[in-house]
């Protein structure tokens, strides 16, 4: 596989971004403080954005960085700070080793199956609907497809977002008699 000619710079970029993603992922898992987890998440997002660019999806990379890393993670941090839950969490798996083991096994199985899928070639014969990727600039093609074939879903996303915002506002409205956060985090059960 390596024998096929790959332009070296692309390979370096790929490897670097994979490393960033890996660090970010593992960091997120093992972070004792939620804030660190959020930062590691940003790191991963950035790695993924780089891969998007490599694959010719510049617009998405931009959106990823601006919307995702910018807004979503900031929201996370905002909530963490608001609730004051930024306290040390014991991430040891002392309590429920059984469940962790099961989780491990489950994930391993999924990975195995995905590898098989990833390495196999899948042709289902369904013809392309959205249009050629290479016909013009990425954003142009993407915009043409979104605003023509997928116009209805696009409108729906607008409605979705409105609902989400309204929901969030109602959910987090201050209700009377709210329980104050307890002095220390309860021991992991």
């Amino acid at each position, binding site marked *: 596989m390596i024998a096929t000619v790959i332009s070296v710079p692309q390979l370096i970029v790929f490897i670097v971004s994979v490393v960033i993603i890996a660090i970010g992922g593992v960091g997120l898992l093992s972070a004792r403080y939620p804030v660190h987890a959020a930062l590691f998440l940003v790191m991963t997002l950035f790695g993924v954005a780089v891969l998007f660019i490599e694959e010719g999806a510049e617009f998405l990379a931009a959106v990823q960085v601006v919307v995702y890393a910018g807004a979503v993670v900031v929201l996370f941090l905002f909530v963490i700070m608001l609730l004051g839950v930024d306290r040390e969490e014991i991430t040891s798996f002392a309590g429920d080793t059984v469940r962790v083991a*099961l*989780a491990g096994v*489950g994930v391993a*199985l*999924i990975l195995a*199956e995905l590898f098989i*899928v990833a390495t196999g070639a899948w042709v289902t014969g369904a013809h392309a609907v959205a249009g050629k990727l290479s016909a013009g600039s990425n954003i142009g093609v993407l915009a043409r497809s979104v605003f023509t074939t997928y116009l209805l879903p696009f409108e729906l996303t607008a409605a979705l977002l409105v609902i989400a915002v309204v929901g969030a506002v109602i959910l987090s409205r201050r209700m009377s008699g709210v329980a104050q956060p307890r002095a220390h985090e309860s021991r992991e059960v």
Partner: protein
Amino acid sequence: MLVLGLVIGFPLLGFLVLLAFGKRIGDPGAGWVGTIAIALSFVAAVVTWILLLSKHAGQRTQVLRLFQWIHAGGFHVNITFRADPLSVVMMLFVTGVAALIHLYSIGYMKRDARFHQFFVYLNLFVFSMLVLVTANNLPLTFLGWEGVGACSYWLISFWFERPSAASAGKKAFIINRIGDMGFMLGTFLVFENLHSVSYSQVLPAAHRLPAGTAEAIALLFFLAAAGKSAQLPLFTWLLDAMEGPTPVSALIHAATMVTAGVYLMARLSPILALAHAASTTIAIIGVVTAFVAAMAATSQTDIKKIVAFSTVSQLGYMMLGIGTGAYVAAIFLMVTHAFYKALIFLSSGSVIHSLDSEQSIRRMGALAKLMPITAWTMIIAWLSIAGVPPFSGFFSKGSILEDAFGRNELLWVVGVVTALLTAYYMGRLVFVVFYGKPRWQEVTKGHEPHESPRIMTIPLIVLAVAAAVAGLLNLPYSGLRFLHNWLSPVFGSALVSYHLSASEKVLLPATDAVVALLGVVIAWRLWRNHSERKALEPTVLLKGWYLDSFYDRTFARGGTALAKFGDRVVDPTIIDGAVGGVAWLFRWVGGLGRKVQSGLVRSYLLIMVGGIVVMLAYVLVSAAR
């Protein structure tokens, strides 16, 4: 044959009248209505007898058909009655003795709270008995058979306040019912083989029965007879039946109902003639019952128990007669026995009546002078039952023993020994009750027992005369065998006649007489002035060979335990449990389902992961194929 309808109709009429108006007619009136009804029935019976007598010996069978009773498929049963020599003999002595006992009961049951109800049952009883003896098919006989069983149930438990009387009645009915099982099965076998149940078809065609079936039918019907006529396995109920009023014991448990079994056997003689093995067994059981009952009678203390055992013993003799084919002798003994046994019961009843219902002979004595009529009638009855010549017992028991001797000497020997015992235990009863020292002081609290009123003594006298004279019915000498000539056409070939040598003809009656007198003398010697002799009254005999307690332990207690076990354990837990089990199963499976909803988000996610794994695997597998 309308008069036959009258014979049966009068008691039924009496029963209905008393049932409807009994309470209003009140104390003596109801009794008289009952007695007149039976007396009229007796007159009708005599008329029937005369009518039949006028006919030629061959056509002495008249049939009266009323209406169709049951009809299904090939099974036809009509309500038809039959007047033939056998049923006439039965009718005569049943209605005769019953009339006397009705008369006696008016005195005996005076001032009883349910006076009229007593006569309702008595009339119903006589009606059922007459249906039994005059029915022309097996199911109708069965109707009479169960009718008398039910009436004996009601009459035994007449004083139902006493728990012992109530359970005695129930015991009698149930043991009779066991016998009736035999009756039903016998009837089915007869129908299966001869496709009819009417005597006019079955009896003539009896010879067509295969031997094995004839044996089975004979034994099955003997089981029924054993239940009704209290033979060895099933006689314990007769002892408890003494709980009923004495006239009941006299009528039902001495003269009429208990003889039904013997009548049935006589009626089915053509079948019995084919079943040699069955007849022998009947004879053996008969003589063994006679001996066992006589032995037990020797040591009873209750006056009615002695007489009850004596009845069982005499019935044993009759069955001996049936078993040896001497049907006429059996009927002859039945008739004479009805007279003197009814007499014994009634006179002991009058003793009990005057001693304020005291029944133990230990508290009686020296009553001869105070109650002369009762004493003398009892003595006459004692002499005839003992078989002392010239009384009727000598001839009737004699002819039975003669035929037994003809069949098998051993039977004769046991028969004679039992005759000795009979004379002895009746002698003991007479001497202890009527002679020796008076022991009734504390029972009657000082005032002397007086003779019973005339209404009770008249029947005693009449019966005494009958008991003494009945022998003439069938004297063994050729010219005077009236009963034999009268009945032989009914039995025809079934009747077995044994040819005894001249010397035996003389010797046998002589031994009977000697044995009877010997019994009397022994009784006189031992019991003249003793009221208690421990040596001669062992408890094993007193308790009736412990047969009753054995039955009670195994069947009664065992049955109750089984019933209670079935009701409280088997049904609720096993069967209901099975049903409940199914319901519990559904609840348990439901419970399992519930546990999965544990509320922990993480376990839900795990399940999701599991789901993903399975789906992916499925995609891969199906894609790979």
